[in-house]
């Protein structure tokens, strides 16, 4: 089932070297951040690598100075909801674009391409006014509402649906099922990898959002974790220790999600391999 090919030693060595170097470069800032999160007070400013007197004080401060726990929960709720809604709206839309060559398809494709380029500032004010009138200020729904559909998601999935192996498609044709069940029974199971990857990315997009939640929330208790992180930074002095501690904690939910979904991604390759 797996790729049975054995690659030559130089090729594998090259693979190990490149991936190891990229991994090191990628991981270093996180390690640096983690180490600094354990440094007491202003030891952070003194550019040593390892903490001299490791402490948990920054974590305690992070939780006492901002409502970090509830912020993470709200961020998670918002990101999860938004991701789920975007996946649910993107999958059929991308499928429609990839499957049928209907009249207006090009126009839709063009419209979608344009809309993923639209800067948030261009739509922010009218959307804000509308959400305030709907009474959604200071709510998770308010954060999620303008982003229930994602042109980016549709185009990404369209891309994957297009490079779908043909053999599997033909197998699906024989089935003779309606378009909806073809999507659900044949395409989606095989596209789990692509959908899961997109899910991770859409989740992270929402998780890292700062300006829109800042506008739509009023109280700190109902803010998201990115707002919390910035609360430690100001021109009157930055509180690096608690900020890094909070940032480190805020990585955990995304990391877990990635690990869970990576399994999905791997599984889907194995399945399509069998088929």
């Amino acid at each position, binding site marked *: 089932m797996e790729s049975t090919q054995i690659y030559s030693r130089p090729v594998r060595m090259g693979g190990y070297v490149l991936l190891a170097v990229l991994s090191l470069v990628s991981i270093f800032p996180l390690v640096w951040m983690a180490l600094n999160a354990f440094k007491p007070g202003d030891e952070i400013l003194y550019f040593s690598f390892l903490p001299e007197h490791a402490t948990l004080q920054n974590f305690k401060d992070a939780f006492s100075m901002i409502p970090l726990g509830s912020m993470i929960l709200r961020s998670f709720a918002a990101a999860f909801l938004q991701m789920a809604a975007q996946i*649910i709206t993107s999958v059929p839309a991308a499928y429609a674009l990839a499957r049928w060559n209907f009249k207006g398809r090009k126009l839709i494709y063009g419209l979608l391409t344009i809309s993923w380029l639209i800067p948030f500032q261009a739509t922010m004010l009218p959307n804000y006014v*509308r959400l305030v009138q*709907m009474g959604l200020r200071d709510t998770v729904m308010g954060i999620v509402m303008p982003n229930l559909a994602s042109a980016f998601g549709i185009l990404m999935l369209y891309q994957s649906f297009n490079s779908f192996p043909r053999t599997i498609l033909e197998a699906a044709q024989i089935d003779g099922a309606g378009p909806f069940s073809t999507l659900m029974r044949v395409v989606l199971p095989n596209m789990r990898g692509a959908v899961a990857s997109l899910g991770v990315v859409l989740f992270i997009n929402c998780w890292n959002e700062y300006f829109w939640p800042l506008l739509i929330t009023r109280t700190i208790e109902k803010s998201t974790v990115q707002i919390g992180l910035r609360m430690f930074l*100001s021109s009157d002095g930055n509180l690096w220790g608690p900020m890094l501690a909070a940032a480190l904690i805020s990585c955990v939910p995304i990391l877990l999600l990635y690990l869970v979904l990576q399994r999905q991604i791997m599984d889907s390759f194995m399945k399509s391999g069998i088929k």
Partner: protein
Amino acid sequence: MKLRTRIFSAILAALTLVSVTACGQEETSSAASSAGSAGSSEEQVEITFYSYSLLNAGQKAGTQQLIDEFMAEHPNIKVTGVAVSNSDMAARLQADMAAGEVPDVAQLPFRAMDFAANSLGAVPMEELAGDEYDEQFSGMYPNGLALGKLGDLTYCLPFTFSTPMLYYNATLFESAGLDPNDPPETWDEVQEYALAIKEANPGVEGIHVATTGPSSGEWIAQSLIYSNGGEILSEDRSTILLDNEGTVGAMQMLRDLAECGAHGTLTEEEAQEAFLGGNLAMYLQSSALYASAADAAEAGGWELRGAAEPAFAGKEVVPTNSGSALFVFTQDEAKREAVWEFIKFVTGERGYTIITSEIGYLPLRPSLVEEGGALYEYAQENPQLGVNLEQMSRMRQTVSFPGENWQAMSNGLIEMIDRILWTEDPVETVVSEIAAQEQALLDS
């Protein structure tokens, strides 16, 4: 499989429904919020207080304490603190006003005063206070009160308020054989000291003047210009006066500092980190940084001192102000009464006591730091407070630029400093080009 398909289509339908209802609901609820006005002071009144200190982890607790103590004293008034970002405050206010939500009272930077008064329709304190105006403000520094004046009317009251301060690292002074008890008083001395310290400590920077980025604002630049006899805006607020000898001289001083290496090439944030990390000898910055700097010095094992802003030889320093002030926007009679109570509390003795001891800004009531005042002991323990309050008598209002382009004009001053420090363009050219650019922004 069938079930899954059905669930899927149900969700699709629900989503579509949500988005459609979202559309239709638009016109309903805005009327509800403005109801429930008029009434005597016994009735429950709710006011919103927009504050960027609430969005600052280090100042949130003190600001909330102000609100809580006020509400304990006035059980019939409920203050809802709304946390907003400082750098995007104007945009936030406009967004809320577009949504029909006017903040009752808001903490804004001083540079937004003209915008708040003329574009957002801030209520002058004279109108709000009526007969109580003189009584309430008599105990304040007259210069402090003047900071909120535009023409004859007081549009805002200093809330968290700070002045320029020359922080210096006494340990680095000693390493270069300089006496930390004798800090530089003029810019010539600053240059001399900076070079001596750099010579004795390779890798250390000499001086940084905090005017080099939007995060620090342009207010210290304004102070430098005034202190050298320059002017920025004409009294009738229609002409930019920047292109004058005073400004050119002040900018030439900065250029000299940069050219001889006394002033380092650091971004604002880098400079702050370098100073807190003990790698920058002198730092002209807001007095509000004191608490962070004191902590950093203690942790790093060096000694922090503070002195007044340095002078141009033979001239008197004219400090300007930074920080924020309280502006009132509500049009509702009952809310105005409640807001006035809130302002009386915040700018009263208890208010400034909390602002100074818990949030780290300056008390605008001299009696507080005198013997018997609530902050007397605090002032004894924090000698830098005296340095700052001493500057009050010479304080001049930071210009809040008029017109639609007020923020672009503020940024123009920062651009001027950047070009002075990081390019070799002739000083006169830079000043006159910026002056022309500012005039164009003012006229358009």
